[in-house]
């Protein structure tokens, strides 16, 4: 019974997860510091608006 309840909760909770793109699952949970030392979880960057992620080779 416990597994059935868990599965029902998972089905509700996983609706968002199931619609995630592969890139969202790969990048989203990663947390990086900004140049002031503040942490940012990557999926927070596109939570409310589109985000352009520009990966540079190096600074300089």
């Amino acid at each position, binding site marked *: 019974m416990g597994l059935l309840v868990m*599965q029902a909760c998972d089905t509700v909770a996983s609706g968002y997860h199931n*619609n995630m*793109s592969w890139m*969202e699952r*790969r990048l989203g949970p990663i947390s990086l510091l900004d*140049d002031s030392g503040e942490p940012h979880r990557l999926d927070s960057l596109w939570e409310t608006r589109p985000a*352009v992620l*520009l990966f540079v080779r*190096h600074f*300089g």
Partner: protein
Amino acid sequence: MIIGNGSAAFAQTFREDLDVPGTILIDPDLLSYRAAGLRRGRAEILSPRLFTNAARALQSGYRQNSVEGDPWQLGGIFVMRPGGDLLYQYRSREAGDHPDPANILAALENPEPVAEESLPDPPAVQRLAGWALGAAVDPTILFSFDRTGFLLRSLAFSPADLAVDLQSRHCVITGANSGIGLETAMGLADLGARVSLLCRNPERAAAAKAEIEEATGSRRVETVQVDMSDLDSVERAADLLAADPVDMLIHNAGVLADRLEKTAQDLELAFATHIAGPHLLTRRLETKLCDSSDGRVLWVSSGGMYTTRLDNERLLSPAEPYDGVMAYAQTKRAQVILAELWAERLQGKATVHSMHPGWADTPAVRSSLPLFYRIMGPLLRSPAEGADTLLWLAASEAGRKSSGKFYLDRIERRTHLLPLTRETAQDRHRLWEICEDVLPGRDSM
């Protein structure tokens, strides 16, 4: 926002020099670069167009200052929208390779999700080097099973093999609260699978569940308490799993005892944990695995099995004085054969493989083989490296192109290095009989 491969100090200087607004993030460990599948390599940086691209940059007024970070890492551009859809992607193929900004603006103005292209394969030269160097260290055993072998062979790995979506799949894995089991469960969850962690210790299982959820964002991780050496416990776990489809069963739980121990059913501990318990669980989940469109059963064996020949009677009655290492090797040899027998039984219905993870730095190795760990420490694979082939067999299309094989580092391997370790057909038949005989009345199939 900009993500860079360096320190905060360099990022601040970068911001001041170029008057960059907005968010600048630093990733000196290249976690996000690897997650995004961005290319890295000397051949990509030192390409023939390096000088023409540099000249073009100079002409546009750019001047190279001192740099920091991995010089061989390439960049790229991704556009993500709320909800996690990918609107645009570009992965640089060489230094100075940049997309047309008009394409990025177009993606923002007409936001339709793009099909996510598969991750780039390494260059042919790199793959060839991986195969050749990996084959060269094979005979050494030491540099094959240790981290050296993995690093060399991984040169040939195709990232696209694990660019898969496992959201429709339920994976059951034993011994999943630490080491290779935990890393495999982590990888499966990261690929979207529903994962059931079968563990003996509920506190450690809960901790593993939390760790996987934190690392992957998954909310589809469950725990089931089971002692794989206790057939009654295995039966109860099978009952709990009975309500749901099961697509994948991974037998990872292991033990290396230093003295003779008997289980509740009076079976030797290594035999019960590595053979009897997994055989029973596979029997109980057999119908579900066959009903799956892509059912897989995987057994985590050990390179130690190469040292021994199957001795069926010793599985039930180990020689005295008890030798835990020998019992371990014996049961690991038996696992490989049992996996082959299961592959024959499930032919055409489900895929079955066994593998060995190489010599990995896991809590089990540290506690069970302390001298080995002290000697080999720096050369041991990380748990993630040890789990790589298991995850690949579980998730990739390549993993189901055949059945009944034995793998190390994503390559099919011989199961015998010495002629004297070969078993007879009678030995194999007897092993199956033993596995069935210790389950009286537990399976009516």
